[in-house]
């Protein structure tokens, strides 16, 4: 009997080894939800009669830090206070005597909007400082006709170098721009291109920026001799919203980031009605469509763009005092931080345009940040657009009971500024 005991034990053990699950080894902990650093990358201009200031509007007080970097080095860095209202700001001239430079702004809370307001004797521009850029971004609505100057700036705010390809398309189709392919943007550096010299007399220009290594933030600065405007690239998406101020000339530019044809539809939210499919059509590969909204002149309107592929949307507004271009936002939100709103100067009027994209009435609170404490509550019907004038301050907080879309603009004799603020995360 003993003769068989061992072999039987062996067979049973073998069966157990085969059947029983193995014990796995040491495993890494679960990865955390990725959150971007509290960073905003701003494109600033000092000189030629213009100066930039950095405006912060957030929900938390504390110390923010602005760092100017040029040619791979942080040449100046300074902390500034974000007050209890969440507002703060800094003139770039107080940081460093630089011309065109990039400034990285670190805020005490990730929930903060940062804008650059650039003003001169005859110009005014406002632009949101983007957070961590996307590997692929698109920026359209530019033109080099009529002597417009146009500069493309690629900002690398990070420690690693970026390798970038920029595809340029115009009404002529894909432009050959070898200088814009295989670009190396060194760490903590900005690379700028005079597009007007490179591609003159183009009515519509779209830049698709793709970083194959590292990340860059892309900005366009355009001047028509009377006014200047600056806006930044956006990550392509299929839905876009814009709240347009009540100015005479308005248009929406839809830029395709797709290598294939795609269809689009524009819904317009006016004071009278929601005009679904106000316009629709198709866009060729990396093409661009401009939709003129002149027929709605004089009233604030909202626009929704739906596309069957990734597109970027920007709006262009022109008034008596100048020109402004702002990117759209890809989604409505219940709160918006309009940094810089109300900070443009005593000779200007700043207002917020609020669009209720939902199907229910929402109550909207508009509060000043960094200025005299003031909050006004408004009720917005579904699909309606409301214009709210702002008191002076560092910015404004738009807080709604439902999802809305907001933008702010300022009109002054020096020029026109218009910007899409930063949405607040839910909760």
């Amino acid at each position: 009997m003993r003769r068989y005991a061992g072999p039987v034990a062996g067979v049973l053990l073998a069966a157990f080894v085969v059947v029983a699950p193995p014990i796995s080894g040491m495993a890494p902990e679960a990865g955390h939800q990725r959150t971007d650093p509290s960073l905003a990358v701003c494109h600033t201009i000092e000189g030629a009669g213009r100066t930039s200031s950095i405006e912060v509007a957030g929900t938390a007080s504390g110390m923010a830090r602005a760092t100017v970097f040029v040619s791979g080095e942080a040449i100046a860095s300074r902390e500034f206070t974000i007050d209890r209202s969440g507002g703060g700001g800094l003139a770039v001239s107080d940081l460093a005597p630089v011309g065109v430079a990039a400034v990285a702004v670190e805020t005490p809370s990730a929930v903060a909007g940062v804008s650059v307001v650039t003003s001169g004797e005859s110009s005014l521009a406002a632009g949101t400082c983007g957070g961590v850029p996307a590997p692929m971004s698109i920026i359209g609505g530019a033109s080099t006709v009529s002597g417009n100057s146009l500069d493309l700036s690629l900002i690398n705010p990070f420690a690693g170098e970026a390798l970038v390809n920029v595809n340029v398309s115009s009404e002529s189709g894909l432009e050959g721009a070898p200088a814009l392919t295989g670009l190396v943007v060194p760490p903590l550096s900005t690379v700028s291109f005079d597009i007007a010299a490179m591609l003159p007399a183009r009515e519509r220009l779209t830049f698709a920026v793709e970083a194959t290594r590292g990340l860059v933030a892309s900005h366009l600065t355009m001047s028509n001799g009377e006014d200047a405007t600056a806006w930044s690239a956006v990550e392509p998406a299929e839905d876009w919203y814009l709240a347009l101020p009540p100015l005479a000339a308005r248009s929406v530019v839809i830029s395709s980031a797709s290598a294939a044809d795609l269809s689009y539809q524009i819904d317009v939210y006016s004071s009278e009605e929601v005009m679904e499919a106000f316009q629709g059509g198709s866009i060729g590969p990396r093409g661009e469509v401009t939709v003129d909204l002149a027929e709605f002149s004089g009233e604030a309107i909202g626009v929704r763009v739906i596309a069957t592929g990734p597109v970027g949307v920007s709006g262009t507004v022109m008034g008596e005092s100048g020109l402004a271009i702002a990117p759209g936002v890809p989604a409505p939100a219940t709160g918006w931080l309009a940094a810089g709103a109300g900070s443009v100067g005593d000779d200007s009027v700043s207002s917020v345009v609020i669009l209720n994209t939902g199907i229910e009435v929402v109550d909207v609170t508009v509060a000043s940040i960094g200025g005299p404490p003031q909050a006004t509550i408004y009720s917005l019907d579904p699909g309606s657009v409301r214009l709210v004038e702002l008191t002076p301050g560092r910015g404004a907080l738009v807080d709604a009971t439902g999802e809305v879309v907001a933008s702010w603009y300022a009109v002054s004799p020096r020029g026109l500024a218009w910007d899409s603020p930063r949405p607040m995360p839910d909760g």
Partner: protein
Amino acid sequence: MSSRMTESVGPGSPDETVEQAPVPAPRVAVLITSIPGADLGPALAAVRRQVYEPADVVVVASDGEVPDGVAAAETLEDAITGSDGSIDYLWILHSDARPRPDALNALVAEVGRNDASLGGSKLLIAGTGDQLESVGSATDVFGEPYSGLDEGEVDLQQYDVVREVAFVSSVSMLIRRDLARGLRRLDRRLEPVAAGLDFSQRVRLAGGRVIVVPSSEVYHQGRCLHHGGGWREEAGRIRAMLKAYRPLTLAWMVPFALLTAIADGLGNLLLGRWQVGARHGAAWVWNLLLLPSTIAERLRLSSMRQVGDEELFRFQASGSIVLRQLASELSDRFLSIFDDDRVLATGTRRLWASKGIIGAILALAVGVAGLRSMFFAGIPQTGFTFPFAPATESLGRFFGGWNDAGLGSSAAVHPMVGATGALSALLFGSETAARVLLTVGAVVAAIVGTGRLGGRLGLSGHGRYLGGLVLLAGPGTGLLIGRGSWAAMVAAGILPWALRSIIDHPGDGRDRLVKAAWAAFYVAVLTAFLPVAALIIVAFIVGARLLGIDRVSVVLGLAGLSGAVVGLAFLVGDPGFMLDGGRRLGLDPSPLWAVGIGASSLAAVVLPNWERRIAVVGSVLSLGLLAALRAPVGGPGFEEATLLGASMGAALVVAAGLNVLRWEPRRAVSALFAAAFVVVSAGVVLNGRVGLPEGNLNERLGFARSLEEVPGRMLLVSEDATDLPGSARPGPGFFFRVVDGTGITLDDVWLAPPRLGDGGLATALEGVATGSELRPGAVLAEYAINWVVILGGETAFEEVLRTQIDLVPTPLDPEIRVFENELSVGVAVTESGSPWIQDGLGYRGEAEDGVLWLGVNADRRWGPGWEQAEWANSVSAAEGLATFGGNETARAYAIAAAALPLLALGLAAWRRTR
């Protein structure tokens, strides 16, 4: 015997006198030298029985005890000088010699016939029948006699030819009286063999011939050999040479003789014989003391010298006889390792008939071929395989010093650090030599040890050596070594010896205490490389005893388990190494191994009884441990032990399955499975690194040393723990560990349990990993991390490092991603910013007022002037030195761990000597 008697040529021989002219027969006086303990009566009787009647008989006895009626002299010189002038020859004979009746007759006849001056008898050992003691001898140039006889060689008349020899023994020699008077006497300070050599050489230098006369047979009781001891013989031979050689010969002979003595002493030390070295020493000291007397003898001899040293060289063997014998014995010992039958030692004719030798050669050939890449590219430096730290550093860490792995700890280091440090120290501080020796030695030891284990269990075939390949690369070891566990390879080399040591083998002649000492020694050494080795020992004992192998001794097993003390300090310091299932490497052998071993177990039913038992024990051991590996408890140490034990069991299955290689249906299935195991294992071994993974991480991370004088600390990150050196810690979505930029050494392999700094670093990394940290460099600088290195494939961690501003990506290697942290000031830095460097177990730098920030886990034993600085230390920089006071508990354990194998060895040596 009578048929072999030489024909008589003495006075009683009518044939000789019939045809020859009436020449008077030579007159012979017999000088019997009294030997203490030898009875004179029988010697005198033997002389009286001689057919050749001596003219006179004189007893040389310094104590004056001489039978009545016999002439006596106090010294041999007195006897020679006092001999009658009519005497032609003197027969010098020891009183412990018993010459055959015709011995003198033969001597006289042959010495006369060959015109020799000195003739010696053939000596046979009294009481043994016909065992030969001497038929004349040659020597080497150092005077070492060489008889050419094998031990116990019987006289079959194979040497019965009269010939010239270097010397004859003084036990029985016939010499011309006139020459003896000229040479005066035998040197009374010399022992018999040396005296014979001395006298023979003097005879030869005086122009005489020295011959051996085999027909003159003398039985020798050998009492003279017990007198004075071996060193006196050696001393005498040296004196004989010092007297005989010309100065030119002495000029080179003496240094060579000294070197030979040293080499012989050391060689014999290896064989466990310390006395030989002492004997050489005593012999030379004795000669030094007697140098004036030796010089006087030289001067006396110079007046009689007729020929040069060349005449002596004619009868000398080339080289050194003692070294030749030593080499022969060493090679015998070595070869006997492979074969208990000592077949290699007894002749190559039987080599190929030896059981197991082909298996041994085949397995060793595979093993050596498996090392081939290491011969050219060096031993890999990856996984758990890294160079040794300097011997003093390793030993310092082992004996309670600072454990430098990761952010440091006072917990004891892995015991292999102490073992490798000790070996490096023994090899005069050469860590490389120690590493190579251990690596190559492990392969050979695993194969040979498995063979010897099989032999101890009663197997004798080829399979027992081939099983060594399965031990090296079988179900568990292949995975461990493949993961880079060099220690597992070394442990595989020691394990079979440890198991063998707990098998009681009554026939080996050792007493129980020696066996217990060896068991403790082997298990202690095994534990140094496999801290949870006790598990295998216990499993083997239980399995073997339950399944009928009673040779496996519980008592020896318990004695062996005392060797587990070597791993105690490490296991107490890091219990998770043994217990924490969450820290395992996650190695799981293919189920096919379990299926194969289980089937082998079943197939073993039809094997012959003993082979069946061994195969079943092997199967159950292997499968039992693999089953234990399924238990959720047990850390990486437990994992190592179970995997290695599983391979050991599989090796026993192979040893039994391939024990007999001939076609027998009942063996076929077992043999088939065993052969499959061998083939699979050989395939693993033959990767050129005995299964170790390829790579040199130190070379890959060498950029830090190239770029910075003080390379600082590195944070290594990978999603795959196998990319990282040694043990790693889990982070959010990746593994990480910290290493020193100066290079990873074996003592860095196992991280101690996390402490304050480790916890802080883990938390910091969690923050960085979310991507919300814009300045991770500043965060990591708090932990003195100068470099972040991403190994292996792309990681989420690497992704977040794209969006930060103070870790500079540095493209140094296409396969790793390096980020330099320029904010880190280093591991040890003073208030003024002056960096200190690691120096052995501490840190050193320029002394200055103020404190030194020491970026290792806080421990109050750092000094001088320790204060805690958050997770790290602050010590005074005034002395220019920061040192760790030592972990007393770990030190006590380490002393016990070091003492145990030494005591065991000492005990074994002592008992052997007794």
